[in-house]
């Protein structure tokens, strides 16, 4: 600690330098939050302010109209709105749960067993991080057809099995936070694979698990049916919200209100998992 404080003193030697640093930080920080602030502010603007020219950043006469108009907009849907909410929650939790279990189990193996097969698998995972979903859209649709899951909840859930990002994150974190000696000791004490997994590996990789929960939640929250769901009763919130956001200038206020509402759950999850996330992401840089 002493060394650190010495360095700190050197760093803060010049008041002016400090000031410049801090100014830079705040400026960059402003740019990061400005879009968020702007969308919140805009969601409170009445229509004439939304269309004002030249546009203003801040709202002069804030009101709740954009929000109170939402129930009206959502009341004449084909399927009751609550159904979409249910779909959204169900799909999100199913996807997050499945991805979490599958990824942590695979990461456990990749971390503990070192041979040619696991090395090759890890290499494949790293390459797979490179690809964009668009490439696979059509062949994936064919596969959905072949196994007959088109127009069911499975279309949302099963592709989550193929996630690679989670395995990568969790594995990197395991390498750094679980000493091999610990596993060895447990094995000598007679613990089986399952026992080791549940009482050593899982608790120790909690930060990585929380981080992956966050990322997987982001993606699951944004899942849209695409072309594989036809019945309205199986669609998720983004498709309903999408119909509001794309319905023209006069609704741009409500569109912004919807955006703000949809933003809340991911940010809440982030606030809960925040400290773990930063820790885990720093492990992502460790070369194995």
């Amino acid at each position, binding site marked *: 600690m002493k*060394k650190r404080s010495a360095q700190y003193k050197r760093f803060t030697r010049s008041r002016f330098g400090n000031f410049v640093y801090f100014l*830079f*930080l705040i400026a*960059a*920080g402003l*740019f990061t*939050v*400005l*879009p*968020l602030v702007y*969308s919140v502010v*805009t969601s409170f603007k009445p229509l004439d302010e939304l269309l004002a*020219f*030249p*546009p203003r950043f801040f709202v002069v006469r804030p009101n709740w109209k954009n929000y109170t108009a939402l129930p009206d907009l959502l009341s004449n849907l084909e399927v009751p709105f609550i159904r979409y909410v249910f779909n959204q929650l169900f799909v999100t939790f199913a996807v997050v749960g499945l991805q979490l279990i599958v990824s942590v*189990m*695979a990461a*456990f*193996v*990749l971390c503990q067993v070192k*041979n040619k097969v696991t090395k090759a698998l890890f290499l494949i995972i790293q390459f*797979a991080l*490179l690809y*964009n979903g*668009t*490439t696979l859209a*059509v*062949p994936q649709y*064919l*596969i959905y057809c072949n*196994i007959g899951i088109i127009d069911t909840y499975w279309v949302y859930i*099963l*592709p*989550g099995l*193929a996630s690679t990002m989670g*395995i990568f994150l969790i594995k990197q974190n395991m390498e750094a936070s679980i000493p091999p000696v610990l596993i060895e000791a447990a094995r000598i004490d007679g613990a089986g694979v399952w026992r080791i997994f549940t009482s050593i590996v899982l608790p120790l990789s909690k930060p990585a698990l929380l981080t992956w929960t966050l*990322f997987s939640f*982001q*993606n699951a*929250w*944004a899942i849209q049916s695409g072309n594989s769901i036809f019945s309205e009763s199986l669609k998720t919130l*983004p498709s309903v*919200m999408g119909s509001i*956001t*794309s319905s023209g*200038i006069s609704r*741009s206020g409500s569109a*912004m209100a*919807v*955006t703000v509402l*949809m*933003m809340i759950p*991911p940010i809440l999850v*982030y606030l809960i998992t925040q400290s773990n996330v*930063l820790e885990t*992401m*720093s492990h*992502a*840089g460790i*070369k194995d």
Partner: protein
Amino acid sequence: MKFLQRRPSVERKKNRNGFLFCLPWCIGFLLFFFIPLIQSIAFSFSKVSVTTSGFELDFVGLENYYYILFQSPEYVDNLLDTLTTFGQQIPIIFVLSLIIAMILNSKFKGRTFFRSLYFIPVIIATGVVMRYLSGSVALQSMQGSAGDLETAYTGTMVNFQQFFEQMGIPESVSSMVFRYVNDIFNLIWQCGVHIILFISGLQAIPQSLYEVSKVEGATKWEEFWFVTIPCLGNTIVLVIVYSVIEFCVSTGNAVIQQAYTVLQKQQIYHISAAMLWLYFLIVACMIGLIFYLFNRLCLKKWQ
């Protein structure tokens, strides 16, 4: 399975159990990633026609690639466009995140707050919110070109263009500055993960090195170039590769957009597949080149 037999039986049992753990993921990966991947490569080398019984593939060799390179009007332009944006953005992002990381790595009150602040875009940019933001007024007005009526009504958030005009700066200069200023949102929003990676890299540098350089009488500037940068070697490679990947996979860039349009609107699957595969090939080559050059020129010298 030779490698399994050579080991003692406990080890073998462990391995067998291990692959059971891996199984769900492997099935999912094969079914929803690997097989589609192979299929899309096959698409790119053939002509896909939709019949009543499903898809029909006729092998045509490199014809699709020939088409997109020499006959398709926009593909090459889009490709070059993407690569130039990439060349402009990556260095800026790199420097910006290194500076922010170095500031955040020093001790001061509220640095945890700032760290999580800079990470927020990562959370938002990956999820549903970004889709709305980019589809709705906020980002359009930030990125939109000025003078366009469409953008005029959505409203520029901070109207830099007007600001410059009022200050009497000639339009050619102001429009250039304007472009970069507009990009700042874009750029800073992409820094989140890089900052975290850099911070962890910086923390791994042993403090004793700095003490030695101080004793030897190095200035801060020399210290930065001869201690910090060489020690960050691996992190730098990682950050560059990460930015390349992030940039290339993002749905915002022109090539992916074009391929997506061809796929969704015109439904010409083989062209779209060929477009994406050629693009990925170029990206993979670029990453390989970066790795090679960096290893050759920098890492060896530094270590």
